[in-house]
């Protein structure tokens, strides 16, 4: 009798260990986890001229990227990745996720410019701009590098060098993860689904 109990207990422990192992593999993020930081709120202007406040986003997971519409390469690549991510989510999941593109070039990226630019990719994407006074604390608060590069012999006039990571904020608006700008869409979807569970 005692032997049978011992065997059953051993089997149960083994099963629990296997399940725990499986779960820990599934619950590991694909992106790079960021050091813990406190919530930083901000208010900027979206592509429809409406005010957007991060703290009012009703418990959504947020993808965030800092780019500019004059950029023809990395920034559209990121938006293309976001489109694939958005299309991979179920409608129920998509209701709890938002895609926020913040300009590093407020001089040229007006709300109407952002609207036309993002419309090509997905109507759900949010583009934010503002005054320098509104944007500087956001760049500084989140450690985002941004530098205007005047190019005298270029028809562009200037370009903007900037941090090009894709950030994921949890449902409390806390920065949790980052992915590179050329991350695989399925890896970002994986991390979104984990963040939706918390």
């Amino acid at each position, binding site marked *: 009798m005692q032997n049978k109990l011992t065997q059953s207990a051993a089997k149960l422990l083994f099963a629990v260990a296997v399940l725990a192992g499986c779960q820990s593999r599934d619950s590991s993020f694909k992106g790079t986890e960021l050091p813990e930081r406190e919530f930083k709120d901000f208010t900027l202007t979206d592509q429809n001229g409406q005010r957007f406040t991060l703290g009012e986003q009703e418990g959504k997971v947020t993808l965030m990227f800092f780019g500019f*519409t*004059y*950029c*023809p*390469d*990395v920034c*559209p*690549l990121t*938006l*293309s990745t976001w*489109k694939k991510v958005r299309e991979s989510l179920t409608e129920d999941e998509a209701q709890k996720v938002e895609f926020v593109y913040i300009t590093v070039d407020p001089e*040229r990226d007006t709300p*109407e*410019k952002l*609207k*036309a*630019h993002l*419309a*090509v*990719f997905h109507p759900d994407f949010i583009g934010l701009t503002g005054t320098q006074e509104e944007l500087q604390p956001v760049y500084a608060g989140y450690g985002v*590098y941004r530098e205007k*590069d005047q*190019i005298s*012999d*270029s*028809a*562009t006039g200037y*370009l903007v*060098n*900037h*941090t*090009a*990571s894709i950030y994921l904020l949890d449902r409390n608006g806390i920065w949790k993860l*980052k992915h*590179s*700008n*050329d991350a695989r869409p399925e890896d970002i979807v994986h991390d979104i689904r984990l963040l939706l569970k918390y």
Partner: protein
Amino acid sequence: MRLTPMFRKVGLLALLTSLFCQIQACQKADDTPKIEIENIWSRPVQIENEDGRVMKSNGVVYLKIVNDGEAPDRLMSITSIVCDVVELHETKMNDDRMMMQKVDGGLDIPAGETVEFKPGGYHVMLIRLKRSLVPGDRFALQLVFERTGTIKVDSEVGQP
């Protein structure tokens, strides 16, 4: 009829001269670049606002330049009627910081190699588009090479 020794010598000289010229011609024919342009594509861009007003907007072209020849060439410039100005740029990443640099003085295309323009690297920047680019659209580009001259291609606008 028997050939005189003199005749035989002249004939041999003519044959050798002919052979020498053939070899020279072959060598000269190999000493050139052989450029092909492949996989040319663009991203869609909307340049008009809701009222139809055109806003300054840029586009991009990616492609592959294949040099199957025995000599290098240099891409000097690109033009297109789809925009005001075309420039060559290169994206460089430093950790997670992105920088774009204009490529000046042309771009070397070594013999026997392929130079690829792709996201995150070299790209053709279409500055101040004159019209929106929509998926399925095609537009012409002219690539000017130092030795090969002008090659005309079409770029296809893909999905966003």
